[in-house]
């Protein structure tokens, strides 16, 4: 992508609440920002680290739940609840990663999925925090010296955290650590054979991504002032994977582009009726998954590097 492109996107994102006053679209844009952070954190393990984790929702969900529990218990300060939630996600990632990363290939995919599902059922059984009905919050967190209750402030908070997260990802990708992670993805056996303790690097990468996913979860719960066990369901992990694949596996912009594309597409199908299509398929709007599936298929077949990858390639050509 051109050097000025990130700046242009940032300026547009900054100007968005000034230009669009409709609450629905502001909320929708915030949702994209939150999912972009979640997908970017998955992209760190999946794309940069080459670890096909099918349980990323566990970390997003942990962040969402722990931050909500703090508010439910009357501790509303984001200074306390948010770092605690991120730390909890990191701890869960450490535990799950320490076991899962002993395995490879399909086993790794299945064991991460299994752990995430265990978390899903665990949260379902937490009756004190709503069980399967979920947990509604009276208000968003306080603190940070800002009024998070305002949707505009929340939008800018999410934008700032996403920008910081993606900048950190960029720094990490070009650091010593990032180069080792890339080498492990490329040729794990040789990385070990030139002296890198591969397992430790993968685990560190997994934990960083889990913590960042937890931060996205904090925002996700805060955004809707509501959290339910579905944030930990395996379909949520799948959605994040779809976003990364759509946007571009191992691309800096992959998570952002993928989240915007998927959520945008779903919204487009569900809320903008196309008459000629409706005349053939009357209920097509209730089956947005079908449309998303077709687009995903097209991306995988014709732009296997994802949307961000396709743009990068065009510029080089």
């Amino acid at each position: 992508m051109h050097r000025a492109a990130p700046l242009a996107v940032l300026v547009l994102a900054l100007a968005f609440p000034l230009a669009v006053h409709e609450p629905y679209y502001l909320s929708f844009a915030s949702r994209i920002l939150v999912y972009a952070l979640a997908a970017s954190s998955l992209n760190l393990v999946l794309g940069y680290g080459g670890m096909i984790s099918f349980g990323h929702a566990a970390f997003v969900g942990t962040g969402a739940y722990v931050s909500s529990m703090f508010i439910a218990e009357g501790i509303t300060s984001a200074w306390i609840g948010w770092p605690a939630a991120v730390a909890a996600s990191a701890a869960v990632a450490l535990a799950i990663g320490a076991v899962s990363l002993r395995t490879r290939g399909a086993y790794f995919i299945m064991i991460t999925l299994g752990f995430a599902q265990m978390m899903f059922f665990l949260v379902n059984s937490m009756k004190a925090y709503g069980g399967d009905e979920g947990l509604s919050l009276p208000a968003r967190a306080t603190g940070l010296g800002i009024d998070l209750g305002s949707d505009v402030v929340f939008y800018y908070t999410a934008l700032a955290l996403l920008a910081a997260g993606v900048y950190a990802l960029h720094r990490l990708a070009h650091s010593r650590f990032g180069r080792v992670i890339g080498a492990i993805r490329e040729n794990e056996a040789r990385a070990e054979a030139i002296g890198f303790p591969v397992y430790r690097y993968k685990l560190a990468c997994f934990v960083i991504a889990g913590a960042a996913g937890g931060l996205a979860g904090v925002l996700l719960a805060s955004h809707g002032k509501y959290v339910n066990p579905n944030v930990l369901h395996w379909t949520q992990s799948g959605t994040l994977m779809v976003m990364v694949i759509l946007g571009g596996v191992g691309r800096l912009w992959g998570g952002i582009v993928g989240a915007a594309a998927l959520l945008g597409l779903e919204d487009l199908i569900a809320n903008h009726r196309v008459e000629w299509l409706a005349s053939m398929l009357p209920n097509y709007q209730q089956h947005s998954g079908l449309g998303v599936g077709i687009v995903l298929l097209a991306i995988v077949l014709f732009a296997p590097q994802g949307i961000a990858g396709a743009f990068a390639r065009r510029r080089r050509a």
Partner: protein
Amino acid sequence: MLELRSISKRFGGVVATDDVTLDVKRGEVHALIGPNGAGKTTLIAQVAGDLGSDRGAILFEGADLTRATQHQRVRAGLARSYQITSIFRRFTVLDNLALAVQARSGSSFSLWRPVAAETALAEEARAIAAEIGLSGREAAIAATLAHGEQRALEVGLALATRPRLVLLDEPTAGMGPEESQGMIALIERVSARVAVLLVEHDMDAVFRLADRVSVLVSGRVIATGAPEAIRAHAEVRKAYLGESAAA
């Protein structure tokens, strides 16, 4: 410097290495020869730590490395190259080598500072590229290199870890005569400062480079000695050298 005491490895019912006792002295080039399937590559993998050993002990510079992980062995000064080229194919030549340099210089749990700004890594990588004959090819993507160049990089990755003993598993595999000569000359230069355990099928290379030769047949060492003695060894001639020694 390296001492293998009765090490063995079996894969199910197949005995790959059987009670191998062998040593490599400081400053020595020790060649390991034997027919296909004799267990040479398995033995290298056991020494380097790709594979564990079922029995026996591996001592290196007096330390017991039998249970050490591969990266610990590399830290201790024991590095290997592979018979089947195993490089970072999408990385440039320079990044391949710089990565191996990075592995032994300072912590790589640095998440923020751009690695590209570390000129020391690149300088050292450049010096190794020159040594292995890849000067001017530093910016090439490893996958695009010619076979001989990839073989040189394969060995270069092991050398870049700055080993005290390097295990070279058929470095000339698949090379033409001219490229082989280049590789032999490289090993000759390297052996001035690094001990070498060399698996090689090219007998000219073996007899030119080796100070001692061990012969592995069906997982067992049947003879160890100076190249001339091995050439003359009756059992070795029968088991292995036969045709090529007569030629």
